[in-house]
Each structure stands twice: as C-alpha cells, then as structure tokens.
C-alpha cells in the first residue's frame, strides 16, 4: 500500500473514532429533542387540595345532568370526552353500586352522586367518586379518590389510594389506611390504628380528644411569628436539659440531645441537632425542630411548626398550633396517640400511624 494512503487512512480512522462519541451529541444538538427548560411549577404552590380542585373542574360539565337526575330520582351514565365512563346517581341504589365495585366483577367507573351516598362493604372503587351529599363507606373498602361536598366517613379497615377532600368533617374508623392526601374544610377525625400520609384541616383529631382541646378556649394572644428575631439565642454545644417548670425567654439551639422537663415554658423556638424529648405539660411558643428523633407530650402546647428529620411521636393531650394560628407537624415517620389535636397540617413523608400508646 502506498504510504501516503496508509497515513491518510490512519488519520481518517482515528478521526472517525474520535468523532464517534460526538455523533449522538451532534444529533441531539440539531434535533433539540430535550432542549426545553426543566419544568418548574409556577402556578400551584403544592396545595393539598390541588387534585380535589382539579377534579371538581373536571366534573363541572356533569353538574346539569346530576341536578336533573336528583330532581327526577333517576340514574344516568355516559362517557366523558377523555373516554372515562361515568354514572350519575340521583338516588341511592345499593345494588347498582355493588355492580360498579370491582370486587363484584364490575368494571371501574367514575361515580357522581347528587344525594347522600352510602356504599356497600368490601368493595373496590378504582375510579374517583364525587359525592354531592354526605358519603358513608362500608367496611374494608378501597377508594382511589373521593370529593365530598359534605361529610365523608370511611368504614373500618378501608383504604384511600390517592386523595380525599371533604367540605364537611372527614372521619376514618379503626384501622383505615390513608395513603394519599386527606383534607377537609371543617375537620378530620382518625380512629385508632389508622395509618396516614398527608392531612390538612382546621383541626385534626386523633381518637376522641377532650372537647376543650378542639375548641379555641386556649388561643395564643400573640402569634409565634411576632417574636421572630426579638429573643436572644442560646447556642449550646453538647447535651442540654431545661428544668421542670423553668420559663425561658429565649430561642434555644442545642447541638446535642435536648430534654425539656415537665411543665417548662419556652417563649421562643427550640432546635436540637440530636434527639429531643419534651415532657408532660411543656409549652413552646415558637417552632420545635429536631434533626433526629423527637418525642412530645403528653399534654404539651406547641404553637409553631413541629419538624423531626427522622421520627416523631406525640402523646395524648398534646395540641400543635391553634385554630387562629394553624401550623405544620412533619417527619418521615410519625406516631400519634389518641387525644392529640393538630391545627393545620399533619404530614408523615413515609409513614404515619395512630397508636394506643407512643
């Protein structure tokens, strides 16, 4: 072979090999198949009611049919523009409902009811339900999503896979599994052994708290935000203990374990880098944040957000937030005892559970 050709061939092959990794890059640069900016949610702020509001808009066009069915006491059905099958109930027909439940060899269908709706037990509803009146579920049912214009009540051992929003009170009986978002404009009540994820309501009751815990007889006179930056900060390296009955008019940051003894009152906010234990009857006017595990209660009053980065357990009689100043209680793992009341949001990122004793 001519040496010039050999050199040219060598250079060509080497160039080809060098260019090879650039071929997909050049193709992508030319095609721009993935050139749009990363999607940043601009309009909604992650509101818990987002799905419920979207669903309400989605079924808005079926409202005239619903009204007509309610007036005539009949049922109707059809297919929405996106191909979803629906049935509109103007009267309660248990046999009809059982037919829609998949457990009874039916097929999934979106249900819209204009009257109080009571669904049979041991049924699986894998399409969304709209309840224009009250909604009562039988035992061991499985729901995808429910929008209730009045109260919504789930039977023992039921589960919710995506979301529920009740304009009235939401109640879950013993042993319900609430995997998605649960919200109410009035209040939420969870029975024993329920599991939960994200909930929001003016008040969330665990079990049957004392009436005064739910009422607003003990409201804060000063919002917790009013003290922001005004109190001195105690920054302590190592473990720390606040004595029983002690009143501390400062913010506390502890880079160790923290124990606040019974009856103490903290006028500011509290942070611990390790575990935090809050004993009986402690009052904290600001936030309570632990970078590890936190145990609160019983009978504590916490006004600001309660955040634990690992686990959180709250004992009975504890109130977080107030009706006037609702707050957020959040941790990956949460255990709450009967008698706890949270005003605002209770959010277990991985698993929340109602237990008899924390």
């Amino acid at each position, binding site marked *: 072979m001519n040496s010039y050709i050999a050199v040219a061939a060598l250079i060509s092959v080497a160039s080809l090999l060098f260019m090879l990794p650039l071929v997909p*890059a050049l193709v*992508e640069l030319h095609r721009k198949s993935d050139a749009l900016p990363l999607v940043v949610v601009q309009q909604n702020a992650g509101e818990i009611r987002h799905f419920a509001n979207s669903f309400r808009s989605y079924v808005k066009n079926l409202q005239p049919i619903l009204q007509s069915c309610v007036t005539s006491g009949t049922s109707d059905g059809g297919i929405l523009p996106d191909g979803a099958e629906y049935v509109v109930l103007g009267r309660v027909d248990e046999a009809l409902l059982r037919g829609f439940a998949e457990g009874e060899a039916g097929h999934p269908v979106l249900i819209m009811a204009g009257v109080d709706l009571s669904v049979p037990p041991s049924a699986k509803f894998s399409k969304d339900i709209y309840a224009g009146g009250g909604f009562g579920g039988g035992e061991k049912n499985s729901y995808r999503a429910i929008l209730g214009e009045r109260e919504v009540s789930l039977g023992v051992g039921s589960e919710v896979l995506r979301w529920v929003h009740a304009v009235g009170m939401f109640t879950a009986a013993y042993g319900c599994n609430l995997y998605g978002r649960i919200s109410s404009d009035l209040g939420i009540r969870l029975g024993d052994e329920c599991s939960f994820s994200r909930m929001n309501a003016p008040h969330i009751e665990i079990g049957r708290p004392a009436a005064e815990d739910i009422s607003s007889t003990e409201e804060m006179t000063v919002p917790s*935000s009013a003290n922001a930056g005004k109190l001195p900060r105690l920054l302590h390296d190592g473990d720390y203990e606040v004595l029983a009955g002690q009143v501390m008019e400062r913010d506390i940051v502890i880079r160790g374990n923290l124990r606040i003894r019974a009856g103490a009152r903290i006028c500011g906010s509290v*942070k611990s880098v390790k575990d935090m234990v809050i004993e009986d009857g402690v009052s904290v006017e600001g936030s309570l944040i632990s970078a590890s595990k936190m145990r609160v209660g019983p009978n504590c009053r916490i006004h*600001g*957000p309660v955040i634990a980065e690992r686990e959180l357990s709250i004992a009975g009689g504890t109130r977080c937030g107030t009706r006037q100043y609702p707050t957020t209680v959040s941790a990956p793992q949460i255990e709450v005892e009967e008698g706890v009341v949270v005003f605002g949001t209770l*959010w277990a*990122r991985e698993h929340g559970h109602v237990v008899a004793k924390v």
Partner: protein
Amino acid sequence: MIAVLYAIVFVICVYTARHYFFTLNRLFGFQRHPYIDIDTADWPPVTVLVAAHNEEKVIANALSALMAVKYPEDKMLVVPVNDRSTDRTREIIDKFVTEYPGRIRAFHRVGGKGGKAAALKDAMELVETEVILIFDADYIPGAGLIKQLVAPFFDLEVGGVMGRVVPMNAGTNLLTRLLDLERSGGYQVDQQARMNLRLVPQHGGTVAGVRLSALREIGGWNENSLTEDTDLTYRLLLNGWKTAYQNRSECYEEVPENWAVRIKQIMRWAKGHNQAMVTYSLRLLFGNHRATLRERIDGTLLLGVYAMAPITLVGWVLALSVFYEGVAPLHGVIALLSLTAYAALGNLAAFFEIAAASRLDGTRQRICLLPFLILGFAVSIFSVSRAAVSQVSDLITGAEFHWDKTERFRKAM
C-alpha cells in the same frame, strides 16, 4: 518538581473522590428535605430584595411574578434595589410601585460604591423584617417559592437559605444547553449532597434568603467582596449559622447566551471565590469556631474549587516537563494502572455527576451532549486561570476590580 506534581495529583484525586462521593450520596443516600413540608404556619413578615442594575429587559417579569406569589400580602414587602441604572429600570419600578401600593417600596440608588453587596448594604435601611429574601432581576419566582424559602427560617440554626436555579433559556444554543447541564449537576447533585451530608451548602446570593439577626451578627453585607454570596456563606458558618439548601425550591433564571458574557461571568465568580479562599480558608480549617470537622474540610475544598483550574494547568505543564526530561515518576505496571484508573474514573467524575443529575431531573436526551462539556471545561479552565493570574497582578499593581454586570438576552417588555 516531582514533589509538586505528586501534590497536584493528590489534590486532583481528592476532588475526584469528592465528586463521586457526592454523586453516590445523591443517588443512594438519605435525602434531607426537612423544611419542604411546612405548608401551614404563622408565616413571618418578609422583605424581598430584588437587585437591579440596568435591568429594563427583565425587571418587570420579576416584579409581576412576585406580585402573584402565594404569601400573605400584608407580610411581604418587595424592595427593588435600583443600583444606579441608566436605562428604563427606574421608570418600570415606579410604575409597579403605583400599581401595587403598599406592596412594593422602591430603593433608588444614585451613587456610592459599585457592586451588588454595596447596593444591598445601602438598601438595608428599608428592611425591618427578620427574614430577607434576595433575587436578581432576571429571576422569575413561582407561586409557592416564597413560602418554601421562608420555611427553613423556622429552624433557629439556619442563617441563610438557598434555592435551586433553573435556566429558562436552556434550549437557545450550545452554550445555554451546556450551562443547563452544569447547573443541573451543581444544584441537583452537589448542593443537595452537601445538604444531605450536613456539609456546607453554598449561598448563591439569589433565590436565597438571610436572617436579619444573623446578618447583623456577622457585620452585614461585605461591600469589599467580589462575590457577596460566597462571603456570606463563610461568615455565617464561622459564626455558628447554617445555610440550608432547598432543592425543590426552583426558580427560573437566564443564563449567558454567548461565550464572551459567559467568560466575564465565570472570571468574576473565580475572582470572588479566590478572594474568599484567601480570606477564610485558614480560619475555617484551623480557627476556634463552631463549625464541625466535616464542615471545615468540605468548606475548605469548596473554597478551593476555582483554584483547581490554574493548579491543573500547572500539573499539565509539569507532567509534560518531567516526561521530556526523561523522569519517570511512576514505573511500569503502576504507571499503567494509574493512567487507566484516572482515565476510567478521574477525569469523568464531573461528567458522571452531571449525568446523574440529568437522570434525577427525569431528562434523558440532553445527556447525549455530555461530550461537548469538554469544550465548556476547556473554556472554564483557561478563563478561571486567567482570572487568577489577573487577580495576582492586580494585587501587585494595586488595580481596582471593575464590576461587570452580566448581560441580559430577553426582549424588554
């Protein structure tokens, strides 16, 4: 010469290991997002400072977006900090002040020292709230962003907060696509890994917040700093405050669309970062303060990132020199194994990080552009080295730093 070369190789290996450690943590480790679930609270009053110097093309977008956010109106005051603008910035701001009475208070600065830190320092006379958020004028915050950036301040350890920056003009040309990838790696992996590992997330000076009491404690804005964000990060750290990174608090920004602007931008960042390195690295590493050992080590490595470019260049020159002088720093199989290991792992660490970030972002095809990052890398290494050299010569000659504002590419409203 060999000893210096060994030292350089060691430092490069440390940074390589750091890249891999961060990426693996992000892919498989425990992810910390402690404040992102705070959606209900008695929200504190907040002042939002919008730094603006000749921003007629973008300021209206930023102010409109801020007027649409979901935060109690009576608790949020927006202060556009008009820093000696000579274009229509003042006129646009004043129009918004009239349109939204009580919600926007303009701060028009007509003289004084140049630079963002100096402007923010002067604007502090209008700030009365404990929580301050800072945006550059080309940023467009979403509806939930203010609450997300305020939420970490419920934690009393937090002195500063940083959100994630997302290029909105990512698809414009090769440069913007490369910057999009770089940003993705920097925030999605680097910053979040530092948050996960309780290291030193960096305050970025925009889509960011600072606690007023912390700012006062550390002596306010440092107008002599070329990058007030890096300076703030380290002064907070040395005074016992943490900076929290919120990866899910995303905000659109505009990235440079031509190489000249990009080179100016990265040279300014490099000079500011190096200035902070000289000022704080020894104090951080050996000083008597509250930073943990891991914060001291990570903080020092973070301070050194822009010094790595000239160090790498020197390493290349030394490596070539020892080769032509006939010196063999390593022998036989060891040399071969070292070369192979470095080729397989070392020089790909940053690319691995960016690829992991793209995957975490749920994007796929843009990963194909990774080979082009060598181009961005080459431009960066020479620009940053040039910045370091000019910084040293400025120091010797006593020349003052000239502030270069990043050019905007959006069409004016």
